[in-house]
């Protein structure tokens, strides 16, 4: 279940209350998010849509603990991340968040295998255990046979799939995807969206995705519309059918 009225219950995976984010630019205060409330249950596939500057990416960054709000709180799986120190927040990100970026953001000098392995280096897993996890993640995204390829040897869609493998390899609490298909052609975009939907459906992952693409948004279960820093409505989308 997804709610934006602030009346969700304690069992929500993600609980956002009265979230505000303001920036100072040239002496002027810009309010990006204004008293935003949100509840998302585990296993949801949520898309955020809205015009440029509506605060979608800012919201995603706050949910991922990459930025701090000016006011309000975010609680994920019982942890109030807005009260955490920077150090704790870094450790929390490693454990709970899988990021998928529009530009893939793979390390170009590492192979697909090594890129996917990166989040596991922070864990106490042995080399053999890490190998098993990485191979599983790459198999899930259908790239088991390209694990030794460098990003430059992969297509955009394949690079994004490596990015998704990197996001899921440590089995995070949720995935945050910022325009994951924004740099892909239609066919590759569909493959990526299929993959995200499959992660939700078959693996019970929770996915929060920012997108400009209505077709992409339609693959989610719920589409939330942001306007001028406020969530204005929540619509059941194609993914719910």
């Amino acid at each position, binding site marked *: 279940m997804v709610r934006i009225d602030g009346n969700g219950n304690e069992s929500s995976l993600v609980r956002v209350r009265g979230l505000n984010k303001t920036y100072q630019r040239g002496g002027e205060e810009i309010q990006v998010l204004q008293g935003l409330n949100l509840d998302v249950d585990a296993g949801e596939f949520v898309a955020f849509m809205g015009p440029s500057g509506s605060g979608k990416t800012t919201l995603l960054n706050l949910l991922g603990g990459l930025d701090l709000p000016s006011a309000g709180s975010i609680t994920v799986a019982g942890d109030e991340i807005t009260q955490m120190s920077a150090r704790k927040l*870094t450790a929390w990100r490693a454990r709970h968040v899988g990021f998928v970026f529009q530009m893939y953001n793979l*390390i170009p000098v590492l192979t697909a295998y090594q890129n996917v392995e990166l989040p596991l280096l922070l864990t106490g897993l042995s080399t053999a255990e890490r190998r098993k996890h990485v191979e599983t993640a790459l198999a899930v995204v259908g790239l088991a046979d390209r694990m030794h390829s460098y990003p430059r040897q992969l297509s955009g869609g394949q690079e994004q799939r490596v990015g998704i493998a990197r996001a899921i390899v440590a089995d995070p609490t949720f995935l945050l995807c910022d325009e994951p298909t924004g740099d892909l052609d239609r066919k590759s975009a569909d493959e990526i969206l299929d993959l995200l939907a499959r992660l939700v459906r078959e693996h019970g992952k929770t996915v929060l995705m920012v997108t400009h693409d209505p077709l992409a948004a339609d693959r989610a279960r719920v589409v939330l519309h942001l306007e001028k820093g406020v969530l204005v409505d929540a619509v059941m989308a194609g993914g719910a059918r």
Partner: protein
Amino acid sequence: MKYRHLIFANLLRKKIRTGLTAGSFAAALFLFGILTVVRGAFHQGVEVAGADRLVVVNKISIIQPLPLSYRDRLLRIPGVTQATFANWFGGVYQDERNFFPQFAIDREGYRQMYPEFVIPDGQWLAFLADREGGMVGEGLAERFKWKLGDRIPIQGTIFPGTWEFNIRGIYRGKRREDDTTQFWFRWDYLDERKAFQKGFVGWYVVRIANPDDGVRVVKAIDEEFANSPWETKTDTEKAFAASWVKQMGNIQFLILTIGGVVFFTLLLVTGNTMAIAVRERVRELAVLKAIGLSDRFVLILVMTETMIVALVGGGIGLALAKLFTLRGDPTRGLLPFFYLPPDAIVLGFVLALAVGLMSGILPAVSAMRLRVVDALRRV
């Protein structure tokens, strides 16, 4: 070292740049090695000087002689336990480029005065028994492939004529830094043959009972010979050796200046390179932070990369310097102690690491302070 592939992949991402940066370290450390060797070559006499030995020379100049009679007077001064003397010969063996120091020595006291030079008793006795006997250091013997019994002609320059010597002994040094490039022969042979300054010696070396009493004994010696035709100037052996080095110019200052400029330039070059390297991968560092690598990890990552370049480059430079010195003195005798000692190698590594640390710290701190949100926004 589960992060090693990340570190080495970063280092090898721009091979030419990494190679050139390491090459800068190599060039600087090679130069450091050679300058240290040259400095050491000039200062070796100072380093090995005996703490309980004083050198007594003519007050006017070292090239002015002192009477042989001073020996007994020196021995009567309280605190002096031994006295010996020697004379510079300055001859030429075959070719002027074949320089090596030649001393006419006091056959009675010289060996006892320098116990760091080890001479087999039999060879010493043979040397004493032969008026034309010569004693050579093992370094010198090796250089000219001399062996016991060889007859060596040396052309006198200060003392004209051809002087022939029979090699009766080969001494070695107790320590590696002891000079084994000297040639000794008997002073009485020189005195007998020379046409002038008979009964005079070049300088005296005296041993004192207590090194802490050196200042008093120095004063006593010079007072003993004050107002005589051959006044003396006495110094500790260390001070004497240091003043000898100073005659060649301020080597220390020269070396420090050159070394300082080179290392400062290296600091700027490496600092700039590392700053560029960090700037180029701001997004990657931001991604590492986003997935949970800490600020401190990013700092250590950048510092480790710099340190590896510094260590590898510095190591290559020092290895090349060591190889260069293994061929021995390139001046054919002017710098007999031409080698790179282990402590200089350690110091070289410390310097390389210090430069690596200083040049890497600013880029590393800026990488550490990078805000993920800002960095990811950059294209």
